[in-house]
């Protein structure tokens, strides 16, 4: 497959764009692989890409029950950031952010990563103190962060309501300028194309219906397209992690909930950064097409329906209008619900399961998109070596028994 270039663009323009080769092969499953990844979302595809490109494992299949990138990869608000308070999370998400910064070149696919900054608002003196603490901790960890006063905030986001009569007046903010947004489909397609070029089979419309386990060791998977033998199996299925774990007779500290997000009709440029408020529970950015992309908290009860509840929609719109009253006349075009896998400490679970050769990457809850490249790299290393990548060590399943939780409620409290 030829790399994309100005020359290939010119050549295809002259032939009316009818001769572009497909970006990846729609592979049929082979009888056996060294590694089978269950789940063709961003995380699964990134894992396959890094297995092949960094860890020398190319006999890999990614099995996706629908089409790639059609689950939570397509059901989020595409925010990328690494503004976490605790060291373990900060290093993991910063690893991911650094990969984002070189991703378009690495994949030879424009993932439209736009580092427009992610602003966290404070609405009280106490929240401002907490933001300031996180700002200092981030800087000590070598991650960029700045505090913004109200005047700077007004210059950055003129449409934001900074009046003292707001229900929750804004008292200040912090910004991570290297944060931003990316194009979600391009992330799935870019990883798929890069993995495919190194020989990874991407198998769509292939649901895993069972795991083959012999003498405490995983030997393959049962699928709707027949059995596939595998030396190792990696699970990266987000909301359905519990369903896959149950196939191995395991139970996880995971609950599946619906997280909703919404897109408005396109507007002229009005917001060129990402605004997040924990207090008001809202996060919003404007896409390159001009649509406002926004969301709030997850739904209140567990669900696999991929369909949101109406009270949350109402809250979400009300919260957005508290921050931006000027958006009250904007029409909402569509909304969607994704099934997110929430862990008790709001931190992911990455590592081996108590079945030899079986690994899981789950528990990203409401914030998995930003971690796509980092989680893929760390999970690929974990599968290839058979032991957790150094960044993944604190995120093992055993932390719930040892009590060494990574409680990120402050940075991950609002779903984004």
């Amino acid at each position, binding site marked *: 497959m030829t790399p994309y270039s100005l020359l290939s663009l010119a050549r295809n323009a002259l032939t009316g764009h009818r001769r572009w080769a497909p970006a990846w092969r729609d592979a049929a499953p082979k009888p056996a692989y060294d590694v089978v990844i269950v789940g063709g979302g961003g995380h699964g595809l990134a894992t396959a890409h890094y297995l092949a490109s960094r860890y020398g494992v190319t006999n890999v299949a990614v099995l996706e029950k629908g089409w790639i990138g059609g689950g939570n990869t397509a059901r989020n608000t595409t925010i990328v950031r690494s503004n976490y308070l605790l060291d373990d999370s900060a290093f993991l998400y910063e690893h991911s952010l650094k990969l984002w910064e070189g991703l378009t070149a690495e994949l030879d696919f424009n993932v439209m990563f736009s580092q427009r900054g992610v602003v966290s608002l404070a609405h009280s003196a106490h929240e401002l103190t907490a933001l300031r603490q996180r700002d200092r901790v981030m800087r000590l960890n070598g991650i960029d962060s700045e505090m913004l006063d109200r005047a700077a905030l007004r210059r950055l986001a003129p449409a934001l309501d900074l009046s003292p009569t707001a229900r929750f007046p804004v008292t200040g903010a912090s910004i991570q300028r290297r944060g931003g947004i990316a194009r979600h489909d391009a992330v799935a397609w870019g990883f798929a194309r890069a993995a495919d070029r190194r020989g990874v089979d991407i198998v769509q419309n292939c649901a895993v219906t069972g795991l083959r386990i012999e003498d405490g060791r995983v030997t393959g998977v049962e699928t709707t397209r027949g059995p596939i033998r595998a030396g190792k199996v990696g699970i990266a299925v987000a909301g359905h992690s519990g369903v896959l774990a149950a196939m191995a007779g395991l139970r996880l*500290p995971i609950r*599946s909930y619906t997280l909703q997000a919404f897109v408005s009709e396109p507007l002229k440029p009005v917001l060129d950064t990402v605004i997040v408020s924990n207090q008001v529970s809202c996060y919003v950015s404007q896409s390159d097409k001009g649509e406002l992309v926004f969301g709030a908290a997850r739904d209140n*009860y567990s669900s696999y329906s991929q369909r949101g509840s109406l009270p949350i929609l109402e809250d979400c719109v009300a919260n957005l209008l508290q921050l931006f009253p000027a958006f009250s006349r904007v029409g909402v075009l569509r909304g969607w619900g994704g099934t997110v896998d929430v862990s008790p400490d709001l931190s992911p679970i990455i590592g081996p399961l108590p079945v030899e050769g079986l690994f899981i990457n789950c528990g990203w809850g409401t914030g998995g998109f930003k971690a796509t490249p980092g989680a893929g790299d760390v999970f690929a290393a974990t599968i290839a070596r058979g032991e957790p990548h150094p960044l993944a060590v604190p995120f093992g399943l055993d932390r719930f*028994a040892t009590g060494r939780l990574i409680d990120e409620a402050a940075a991950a409290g609002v779903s984004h």
Partner: protein
Amino acid sequence: MLLIPCPHCGPREEREFRCGGESHVARPAVAEAPDDRTFAEYLYVRTNPRGVLAERWHHLYGCRRWFNLLRDTVTHEITAVYPMGASRPESAP
């Protein structure tokens, strides 16, 4: 929007309720000196089924009483309502 049949007040909209999570999670008896793994299981591990789930609900903005529901996590259909302390009824096929 769920219409939840409170056993005391009748059907009310979901805004009036809080979901209290999975029912019938038994705390390990102290007399049995549970180890960390057993206690972690009780604190954190849940069935999280794709299908019928037994869960506790609290009619927070109503009678403020707790009760149990059987609810399908895919269709959101509620198939049984039963009091706290009662054992889980057989779910309809």
